């Protein structure tokens, strides 16, 4: 077969993609060591390192696309030249699971990091479509956020540390995205955890901020236990299988292949999957552990936009997408009507969207919106819509980042550092046209209005849920979409339309003490970063400077156009071609390439089969000598009639919300007297939502109290009675032993020996004293005498 000999194109950028996280990591060290002495306080190092990483990421992306094209050219050549052309223009060619693209070998390189007990832990790179997509996304968004930050946090007292943490954070995410094995993934994951703690608590002088940082850290940590347990479970399950094939149980490729090999134990996969999914719940703010994410808005806005829209919270989704075969087989995705991922994803979509309705803080609306959108991504993964979920990561990153930055722009220049929509905003559309326009575009994308990017990704998830037989979650997705549209309309109205209030109307209220002291940590931030004076010069709201608006404009543009990479409505599916791993069985020795320093192997036999879900990777075991790396998933075929319900529901959500907002908040007699103060039922629902389903009460009041207080008490009792007893007993016996030793051993034996040796030395010295007469002649005589004796002895011995 000629295909076996074919090689995929590669290139310098693909082979050296490991530089992408390394550059910001070095940048971090430089900023920490020398940042304070630099003219721009270290921010220039951060910007340059992110720009360099972005350049490499762009190069790698271009070469990856060439690689994919070279692979499909080879594959299609074998299948007949005409077919490739047909595929490019007819979207239905991908119908019914018949993804005919050839297998594209990821670019894998590994170096040994350390060895322990016969186990080898590697670091390296595993570059496939998913990694490439996130590398590009993370470096790009990080660069924009850093540009934005140079303006937003200028003059901050910890400016240098801010940039150091921001740069290290990006490095951590990139390490995780590149990860060749689970250990490296954990490394990046934990770096991010640490940096998110530092960044959320950046203005730690405020108790609320440092509490939010701790909450984020510890809540995510609950999930991290799952990551460690899951990695261990998978390792012990997969290691023997993987070692037989020249890899090990940490390698992501080996884990994927093992999970799909049909030899993996289902219970190991299930429990390993559950543990890993708990980690994803913690990191991605899914339902029971989502409480940290809105509180994390206490950090500076660029941090919110970087951490909580496109990088950190996506890590959990990435984890699931990365070792997808484990979940696919472990949870029987596509074979069961419901599974853990869809349940959690579904609950998250609805619960978080409901919470977004009752927030007054603009950033918290966005935070809950993020949680809800992450629910969509999880739902997508849970219903077997891997590609739409990943595509949603991609589009969501742009419009959510733009929304956060727009919110930051409003607070920076429009509302005097307040994030309170009801108090300090309203009517800002005319004062801040660029911010308002970009906000509106991004909102349209988020709501899933047709022809904006969110429509193409979110609608695909919903469509595939029904396509794959998850009818219930199809409705969950639709209702979520309507709710998203409604709460975003409410936030848009409160911020940009209606009558200007508070700071937006030009009023100054320097005393923020009366501001919601507990649940609005974010708007106290300005006290610490001390450039209040900067704004006293400007009376009232105005447009932000270019360093804030430029990233906004770029992101809003992408919020429109990024969807067209995979827009079935207009017949494009570049994203599918470039990112989706091809679920075909390949020759088993492809697994060995882990140790092969990333040289592209020959293309293995492609056994692409047309047909439904009965055949192919993930549905039947791969043939002897072949392995699968990804399940063979099919895609729903887009049609406007199927998209119609979601479009209608979105339109319904927007109009209802707009009507209510204008009616309720725009009421001339008593504006801001919301629905809740008018109806009893609404008030009770409101209280339930404002208290976030009482989850925080549950965690802090019940769980923490039930677990931590008795534990503290027990620990105190043990401390006082047992530990202190032991310590005191040890102390007392130690003292008496010491005394005995002093009397007997020290005074008698040791001192005796010392004194005796001193005495002997002294006496010997006295005896020999006369020899040292000080007379040179005598010394000479002794010398020659000794030499004579020596000579005599020598002669006697030799005779």
């Amino acid at each position: 077969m000629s295909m076996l000999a074919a090689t995929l194109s590669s290139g310098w950028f693909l082979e050296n993609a490991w530089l992408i996280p390394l550059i910001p990591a070095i940048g971090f060290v430089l900023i920490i060591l020398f940042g304070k002495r630099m003219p721009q306080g270290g921010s220039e190092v951060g910007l340059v390192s992110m720009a360099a990483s972005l350049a490499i990421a762009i190069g790698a992306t271009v070469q990856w696309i060439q690689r994919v094209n070279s692979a499909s050219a080879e594959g299609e050549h074998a299948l007949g030249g005409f077919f490739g052309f047909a595929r490019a223009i007819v979207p239905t060619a991908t119908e019914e699971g018949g993804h005919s693209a050839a297998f594209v070998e990821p670019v894998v390189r590994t170096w040994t990091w350390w060895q322990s007990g016969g186990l080898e832990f590697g670091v390296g790179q595993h570059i496939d479509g998913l990694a490439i997509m996130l590398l590009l996304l993370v470096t790009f968004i990080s660069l924009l956020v850093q540009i934005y930050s140079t303006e937003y946090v200028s003059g901050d007292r910890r400016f240098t540390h801010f940039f150091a943490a921001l740069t290290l954070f990006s490095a951590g995410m990139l390490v995780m995205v590149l990860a060749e094995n689970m250990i490296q993934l954990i490394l990046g994951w934990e770096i991010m955890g640490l940096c998110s703690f530092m960044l959320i608590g950046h203005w730690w002088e405020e108790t609320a901020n440092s509490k939010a940082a701790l909450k984020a850290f510890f809540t995510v940590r609950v999930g991290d236990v799952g990551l460690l347990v899951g990695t261990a479970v998978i390792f012990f399950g997969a290691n023997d299988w993987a070692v037989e094939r020249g890899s090990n149980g940490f390698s992501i490729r080996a884990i994927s292949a093992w999970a799909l090999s049909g030899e993996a134990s289902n219970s190991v996969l299930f429990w390993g999957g559950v543990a890993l999914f708990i980690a994803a719940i913690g990191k991605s703010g899914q339902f029971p552990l989502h409480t940290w994410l809105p509180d994390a808005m206490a950090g500076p806005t660029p941090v919110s936009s970087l951490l909580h829209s496109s990088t950190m919270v996506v890590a959990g989704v990435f984890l699931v997408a990365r070792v997808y075969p484990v979940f696919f087989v472990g949870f029987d995705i596509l074979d069961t009507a419901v599974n853990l991922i869809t349940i959690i994803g579904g609950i998250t979509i609805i619960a978080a969207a409901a919470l977004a309705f009752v927030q007054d803080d603009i950033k918290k609306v966005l935070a809950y919106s993020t949680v809800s959108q992450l629910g969509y991504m999880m739902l997508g993964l849970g219903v077997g819509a891997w590609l739409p979920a990943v595509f949603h990561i991609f589009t969501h990153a742009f419009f959510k980042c733009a929304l956060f930055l727009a919110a930051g722009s409003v607070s920076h220049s429009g509302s005097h550092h307040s994030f309170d929509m009801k108090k300090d905003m309203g009517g800002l559309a005319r004062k801040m046209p660029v911010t308002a326009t970009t906000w509106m575009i991004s909102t349209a994308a988020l709501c899933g209005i047709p022809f904006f990017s969110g429509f193409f990704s979110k609608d695909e998830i919903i469509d595939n849920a029904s396509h794959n037989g998850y009818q219930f979650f199809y409705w969950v997705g639709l209702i979520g979409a309507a709710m998203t549209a409604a709460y975003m309309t409410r936030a848009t109205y409160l911020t940009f339309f209606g009558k200007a209030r508070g700071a937006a109307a030009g009023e100054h209220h320097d005393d923020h003490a009366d501001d919601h002291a507990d649940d609005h940590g974010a708007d106290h931030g300005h006290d610490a970063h001390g450039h209040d004076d900067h704004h006293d010069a400007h009376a009232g709201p105005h447009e932000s400077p270019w360093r804030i608006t430029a990233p906004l404009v770029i992101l809003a543009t992408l919020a429109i156009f990024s969807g067209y990479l995979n827009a079935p409505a207009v017949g494009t599916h570049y994203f599918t071609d470039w990112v989706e791993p091809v679920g075909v069985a390949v020759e088993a020795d492809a697994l060995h390439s882990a140790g092969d320093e990333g040289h592209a192997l020959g293309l293995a036999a492609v056994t692409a089969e047309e047909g439904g879900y009965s055949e192919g990777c993930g549905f039947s075991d791969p043939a002897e000598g072949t392995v699968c790396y990804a399940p063979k998933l099919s895609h729903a075929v887009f049609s406007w009639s199927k998209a119609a319900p979601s479009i209608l529901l979105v339109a319904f959500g927007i109009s209802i919300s707009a009507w209510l907002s204008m009616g309720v908040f725009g009421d001339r007699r008593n504006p801001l007297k919301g629905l809740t103060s008018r109806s009893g039922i609404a008030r009770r629902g409101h209280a339930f939502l404002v208290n976030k389903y009482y989850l925080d009460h549950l965690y802090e009041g019940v769980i923490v109290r039930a677990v931590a207080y008795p534990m503290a008490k027990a620990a105190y009792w043990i401390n006082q009675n047992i530990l202190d007893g032991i310590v005191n007993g040890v102390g007392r016996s130690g003292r008496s032993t010491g005394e005995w030793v002093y009397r007997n051993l020290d005074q008698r034996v040791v001192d005796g020996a010392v004194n005796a040796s001193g005495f002997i030395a002294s006496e010997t010295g006295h005896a020999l004293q006369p020899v040292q007469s000080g007379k040179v002649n005598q010394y000479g005589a002794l010398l020659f005498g000794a030499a004579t004796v020596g000579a005599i002895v020598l002669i006697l011995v030799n005779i």
Partner: protein
Amino acid sequence: MYAVNFLILGALLFALGVFGVIARRNAVMVLMSIELILNAVNVNLIAFALMNDSAEGHVFALYVIAVAAAEVGVGLAMVLMIYRNRRSIALDELSALKG
């Protein structure tokens, strides 16, 4: 074997030198005695070189002469200093190192 005569000469010179070192009070005389000892060694070296039919002994002798010259230089300088300080070079008076 006439080389033995040289060895006997060397032994005599050595004994003479040792006697000088031990018996003389004058530091300069002691130094001269040391020179005698060194030259006894030189005679020995050359005698052995003769016996073994090799030139190495000669080379060593030359070295010894050079080192002896340096040593005398140092020794005389010390004697001079002692004389300047004490107005005497009698060795039996120099017993500051008495233990």
